[in-house]
């Protein structure tokens, strides 16, 4: 099929970017979206042009490295699907596809569609862990965790850190990302001890990185490849208020 593309090109953060028009005449519907970009890049090389830079690695929806806005939607038209798992059969012959980077103040553009999501690492550094140094651990079955609790913690812990929640949010909020980690550990007995410090530090870091605030539009949940629930945000707010109270007392 024939596909028309309008793709964001930007040399670096310091320079202005623009949408550039391309055309591909022979796109197969079995191709993945990223393989379509490979094809385009191959044609740019033939024309001696610089290729379009985009992020990707595993190409199977688990590493969280890929992610672009496709026709205005984070990761494209399918709900709960990463960019790399999107296939061209989701488009029709003659379609025009707009491709832009994930946009947020906390995700500066590196080049073209590549962005820097270091801010998410910084949130984890501030408290997104259980302090258990190597060698300290007790016998694993010494700690019983009921099946439903383990499963609920897992639902929260399955985040792949792609940043689609931020990109799709009109406030560029990282609440879904941060709350998922906070919930995972708040539910588990191992995470209980550091619960208060964790939520305070992570929420503060989120603000410091320049992410916006959540206004409950719930757009993030729709795009999240792991279907992480916005209810975690409510839980984070509860944990945060409780922690503040505890700290004051």
């Amino acid at each position, binding site marked *: 099929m024939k596909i028309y593309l309008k793709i964001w090109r930007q040399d670096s953060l310091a320079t202005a970017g623009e949408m550039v028009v391309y055309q591909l005449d022979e796109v*197969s519907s*079995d191709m*993945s979206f*990223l*393989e379509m970009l490979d*094809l385009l890049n*191959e044609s740019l*090389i033939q024309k*001696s*042009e610089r*290729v379009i*830079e985009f992020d*990707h*690695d*595993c*190409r*199977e*929806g*688990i*590493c*969280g*490295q890929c992610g672009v806005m496709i026709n205005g939607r984070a990761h494209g038209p399918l709900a709960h*699907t990463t960019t790399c*798992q999107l*296939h061209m*059969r989701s488009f029709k012959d003659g379609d025009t596809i707009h491709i832009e980077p994930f946009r947020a103040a906390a995700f500066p553009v590196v*080049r073209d569609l*590549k962005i*820097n999501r*270091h801010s998410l*690492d910084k949130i*984890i*550094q501030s408290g*997104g*862990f*259980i302090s*258990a*140094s*190597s*060698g*300290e*651990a*007790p*016998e*694993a*079955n010494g*700690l*019983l*965790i*009921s*099946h439903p609790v*383990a499963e609920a913690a*897992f639902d929260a*812990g399955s985040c*792949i*850190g792609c940043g689609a929640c931020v990109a799709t949010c009109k406030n560029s909020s990282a609440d879904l990302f941060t709350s998922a980690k906070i919930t995972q*550990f708040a539910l*588990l007995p*191992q*995470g209980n001890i550091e619960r208060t410090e964790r939520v305070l530090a992570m929420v503060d870091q989120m603000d410091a990185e320049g992410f916006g605030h959540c206004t409950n539009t719930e757009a993030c949940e729709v795009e999240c490849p792991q279907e992480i629930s916005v209810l975690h945000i409510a839980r984070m707010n509860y944990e945060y208020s409780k922690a503040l109270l505890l700290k004051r007392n």
Partner: protein
Amino acid sequence: MLDSKIPDGPLADKWDNYKEHVKLVNPGNRKKLDVIVVGTGLAGASCAASLAELGYNVKSFCFQDSPRRAHSVAAQGGVNAAKNYKNDGDSVFRMFSDTIKGGDFRSREANVYRLAECSANLIDQAVAQGVPFAREYGGYLNNRSFGGVQVSRTFYARGQTGQQLLLGAYQALMRQVGSGKVKAYTRHEMLELVVIDGKAKGIITRDLVTGEIERHAANAVVLGTGGYGKVYYLSTLAMGCNSSAIWRAHKKGAYMSGVSWIQFHPTCLPQSGEHQSKLTLMSESLRNDGRIWVPLKPHDDRKAIDIPEAERDYYLERRYPTFGNLAPRDIASRAAKERIDAGCGVGVMKNAVFLDFSKAIKEQGQEKIKEKYSNLFKIYDKINAVNAYEEPMLISPAAHFTMGGLWVDYELMTTIPGLFALGEANFADHGANRLGANSLLQASVDGYFIAPYSIPNYLAGELKAEKITTDHPAFAEAEKTVREQLRNFLTINGRLSADHFHKKLGQLLYNGCGLARSKESLTKTIAEITALRTQFYQDLKITGDEKVNSELEKAGRVADYFDLGLLMCDDALSREESCGAHFREEYQTPDGEALRNDKDYCYVSAWEWKGELEPHELHKEPLVFENVSLTVRSYK
């Protein structure tokens, strides 16, 4: 002479003996010692975090935009540990002997025993970090069985075992970054190892954002840079997985072992066209309930449901009645290839076999199957737009795991003092074939439990050594090599992209040095690769500049793959036997099983680099088996 430094004493006491006698570094002195850890997968992240916890200064490197994205995330199936929670007769010794046998007796007893011995601790460590392994209703940890063994020793976290284990290690690493003990360098690629007076003293990296070439000095360098299955282009690895870190270390004197031993995973999604960039793995656990078959007659174009039971060939059940569909990976993959080559393959490119759940659905009900595999069926549907509850999946073998890598001794040190290799980057525990769910374990055990003893044992001797800075001429020289290579790629100005060469190389290797190889195929492949390599240096085309440039990154990786590919063929050619993943067509039994030759080949090949396009020199580490007897691996 290769010295594997295996500690004295009975097998079960070796690791304790070692730990009791290692040199220690006084806590006050540790902050004077710097360690570079390249890689943030399970091996690298766990090692970097553990060393920082001990008080060493650590610099951590990865090429992705975050340490959490290392390809360990992709592991679905599980991680093994000899906990014997199922009371089904598992033990450290049994796990050891399963692993030795699974590796077709081409690994070192002492290393494998230690892997099994430390396995239980890994589960404890992961649970303490909050890794959400599957649990039973009573709250205890759950297990399942995995290909090639008869006990249930596999711990799992839905289809995300690797992701969850890596998050545990990543979070431990982030904790140390937050506390300032580790400095993290993301989007950095290691392009040279710096060796001074025979010891590893630093690396040269390229910042993949600014293009800057940087020098980093340290008292020891650790490579946890993963596997190189991507050499075949089509594989289950990530697009960025590479051999460059280990290969450049190899060119500086670190020997490579088991180079051609690459596991092809039997349950991957087949290639569907020329555009294909990777092959997605479907978890091996599917083989617990799925039955594998092809049409009995070659070139049968009917749809699966139209082929009556009597005209189906359940070839694994036929050839291996005891293990059936759960036969180990190398055997299952080769059996698939045998049928595909015989013209019985299915799918558009006739390169696949069926994985059929109809019997399991009939017996257990669709709900039960859904409960076990819904995420996998969903992935399958996403990629192929096919509902596998209604028609069988199409699967095919794909390059997956590299048993080969840098030769290491018992301390995980390469032949360059001060250079350590961990995880999939080394050749150690898996012999000629890795058992499923043993490699997440190996990467983790290397990083959490072994390196924190063996690296300080080396560092203790570094305290008195002269402090090296990046002003040393060896750094300047290594930097020059890197700059020249990059400039060369940018100025060849030929016609063809790096991917073009990578795909061609992959195809050559798959045909000549893949699931099966022969003297004839290998000799032919060496000639073909050599010619393609020459063309690469004349006809490569890299556009763009020296800053962010994914094409420039690819060029360096493909250049190394050419040299690696040649060594893979030499390695396979030199071993005139079949063992594990290495199946030489000349060496098989009348019914097509691998024919090992313990009399002449019971050793590990360790290859020494002798210069550009020069033949490598072969060194041999004899393998001695005192605790298991060398038997013929049979899964019939």
